[in-house]
C-alpha cells in the first residue's frame, strides 16, 4: 500500500498512535496507520544547576512516523538542543515516556542507550566531528566497530555508504584533505552505515557555504525519498523548508506545527 508522497505506509491496527487519514479520489476516507519511529509523550527535562530548577522541556508530545522528514526549529535556549539530545538517546527525560521504534528508552541504562544509539540513530553534527587521524572510510566504519561487525564487512559497508554520498574517489583521504561539504558528506555516510531507524541532523549546514549546504540538503532529501526517517534541527527557515513538516519549539514546548503543501 502506498500513498501519493511515495512514503512507505503500513497498516497496523495494533498501533494506537496511528494518525494520518486521507480521502481517496472517489471520496472514501481511508485510515492509514503507520508505525511511528519517535513517540514522545509529555516529556519534561529539568536541570538543577543550583537551587533553582530550570525546565528545558515542558511537556513535549510529538510523534514522527517512519519515512517522515521533520524539521525542528527554534531560537537558542528554546529547548531545541535538549530535545535533540533526548531524541538521539544521548540523554534521558526527567519525566514522560519516549518510545523509539516502539521501545521505551526513557529509563534505559547508559549501556543500553549506547546500544540504541549505535543501532537506531545516525548523527550528523554541525562540526562534522570526524576523527582527524583516520581516513574517510575508517571514519565511516567507526559505528560498525562498536556493533562488533568483522573488518571486511565494515570496509564493504563503509565504501558503499561513501558511494551513496558521492565520495567514492575520496575514501582514503583524511578529513583535513577534504572540503567542508565533503567532510559533512563523510559524516552523513557514517550516520547511514549502520542503517539506522532515524537520521538526526543537528544544524548540518551551519558551517557550510551555500553551495555545499544545498548539496547536503539535497542528499537529505534524496535519503528521505528513498524511505529514510530524517529529523533536522535548525534555526534557519530556508533549511527547514526542505522538510515535510516543521515543528517550532519555544520555551520548552512545541509552539506550532506546519505541514508542507
Amino acid at each position: 500500500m502506498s500513498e501519493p508522497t511515495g512514503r512507505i505506509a503500513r497498516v497496523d491496527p495494533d498501533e494506537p498512535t496511528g494518525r494520518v487519514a486521507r480521502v481517496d479520489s472517489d471520496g472514501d476516507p481511508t485510515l492509514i496507520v503507520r508505525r511511528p519511529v519517535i513517540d514522545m509523550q509529555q516529556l519534561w527535562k529539568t536541570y538543577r544547576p543550583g537551587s533553582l530548577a530550570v525546565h528545558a522541556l515542558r511537556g513535549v508530545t510529538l510523534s514522527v512516523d517512519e519515512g517522515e522528514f521533520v524539521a525542528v526549529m527554534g531560537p537558542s535556549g528554546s529547548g531545541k538542543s535538549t530535545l535533540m539530545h533526548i531524541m538521539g538517546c544521548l540523554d534521558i527525560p526527567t519525566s514522560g515516556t519516549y518510545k523509539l521504534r516502539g521501545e521505551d528508552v526513557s529509563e534505559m541504562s547508559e549501556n543500553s542507550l549506547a546500544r540504541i544509539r549505535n543501532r537506531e540513530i545516525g548523527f550528523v553534527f554541525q562540526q562534522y566531528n570526524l576523527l582527524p587521524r583516520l581516513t574517510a572510510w575508517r571514519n565511516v566504519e567507526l559505528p560498525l566497530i562498536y556493533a562488533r561487525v568483522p573488518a571486511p564487512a565494515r570496509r564493504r559497508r563503509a565504501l558503499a555508504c561513501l558511494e551513496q554520498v558521492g565520495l567514492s574517489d575520496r575514501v582514503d583521504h583524511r578529513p583535513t584533505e577534504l572540503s567542508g561539504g565533503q567532510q559533512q558528506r563523510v559524516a552523513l555516510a557514517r550516520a547511514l552505515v549502520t542503517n539506522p531507524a532515524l537520521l538526526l541532523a543537528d544544524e548540518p549546514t551551519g558551517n557550510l557555504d551555500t553551495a555545499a549546504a544545498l548539496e547536503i540538503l539535497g542528499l537529505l532529501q534524496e535519503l528521505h525519498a528513498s524511505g529514510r526517517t530524517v529529523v533536522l534541527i535548525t534555526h534557519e527557515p530556508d533549511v527547514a523548508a526542505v522538510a515535510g513538516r516543521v515543528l517550532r519549539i519555544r520555551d520548552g514546548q512545541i509552539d506550532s506545527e506546519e505541514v508542507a503543501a
Partner: protein
Amino acid sequence: MRWRDTLRSGFEAILGHGLRSLLTILGIMIGIAAVILTVGLGEGAQSSVNSAISALGSNLLVVTPGSTTSSSGVRGGFGSASTLTLADANALGSKRVAPNLIAVAPEAETIEVLTAGSSNWTTTVVGSTASWAEVRDRQVEEGGFFTRQQVSGADDVAVLGTTTASELFGAESPIDQTFTVNGISLTVIGVLTSAGSSGSTDLDDMAIVPITTAQQQLFTGTFATSVSTIYCEASSTSGLSGAYQEIDDELLSAHHIDEPSEADFTITSQTTIASTANSVNRTLTDLLAGIAGISLLVGGIGVMNIMLVSVTERVREIGLRKSLGAPPTDIRRQFLVEASSLGLLGGIGGVFVGFIGTVILPHLQTNPVKLSVPATVGAVFVAICIGLVFGVYPATRAARLSPIDALRSE
C-alpha cells in the same frame, strides 16, 4: 568492540602522539632497566661471593685465632692473636682426636720477594701441609704437590700458582727450576691449575711451601711459631657439627681453657660465611631495587599524567565515539589498552637497555652482572601492570564523560 579493534585503536593513539608517547615510555624504560641492572648486579655479586666461598673447598671449617689484648688495653681484631700453632693442626689431624675430619691444613702466610735468575716477583708465600690441595680443593696441573715426607723433612720445595710461575719463569716450564726467598733456594715441584680470581684476589698468585720449611727457614716473627688459619675438611655435610664440636673440645683442652666463652680461637663454617656475605649482599640489592622500584613508580605516575592529558585532549573524540554507540566499557578498555601498551613498550625498552647494560657494565667496573630471567620477565609484567593500574583512573574518567558535555567542548 572487538579486542583486535581495541588494540589497533590503542596503538594508533600512541603512534599519533609519537614524541609524547616516547617520553612516557622512557620513564618506564629507565625504571625497568634500573630494576634489571640492580637485580643483575646483586645476583652477580652473590654468585661471585658464593664461588669465592666454594673456592675455599667443600665441607670446610675454618679455625682462626681469637683477638688479643695488648698490655695497654688495645684489643686487636679477630685473627690478630697468634694462639694457633702447628701442633694444634697436627693434633686435629689425628683420627683419634677428630674422627669427623678427613683432612687438616694449617696455613701461615707472609708476603715475600721471590727471585729467579734476573726476574723477581712479590707474592704471598703460604706454608702448609700435604693436605692443602685437597682441603682447599685445588688441583696440580704440572708436576706434583709436596708429600708428607717432604713436609716432615722440611724439604726446600715449592708449588706455584700459574701467575707466579709465569712471572718468574716466563714461558719456560718452571718444574725443577729454582728460585730464592730470603736467601733460601727452593725447587719448584708443581704448578697449580688456574682457579681464576675471587673478588680482587688472584687465586693463582701464590707459592706454597711445606710449613716446616717456611717456619724454620723463611719466616721470621710470629709466623715462625704460629699459624694464621687451620682449614679442616669434614667427612661430609652431616659430619660438620660433629667436627665443629671435636675441634672446639680439642683446642680448648690443648690451650687449657675451661670457659668456652674465653676461647682464644674462632671456628667458622663455610655456610656461616656464605650466609653472612649473602645477607649483606641481599640487603644492598634490596635497597637498590627499592630505589629502582621508586623510579618505576615515578614512571607509572608519568603514564597516568599523560593518560589524563590524553583524556582531556580527546574529550570531543570520546563524546563522538559515545554518540556513535561506544558503551562506557569500550571507552574504558580503549584507554586501559593505551596505558598498558605504554607500559609494555616501556618494559620491552627497559629490558633491551638492561640487556645492553649487563653486557657493558662489567667492562666499566669489577663486579659481574648477571641477567636474571625471572627479574626480566617480572619487570615486563610489572611494567604492563603499572600501565594498567595508573591507567584506571584516566580511563574511568573518560568512560564517565557525558556524551553531551564531551561533544560540546571545544
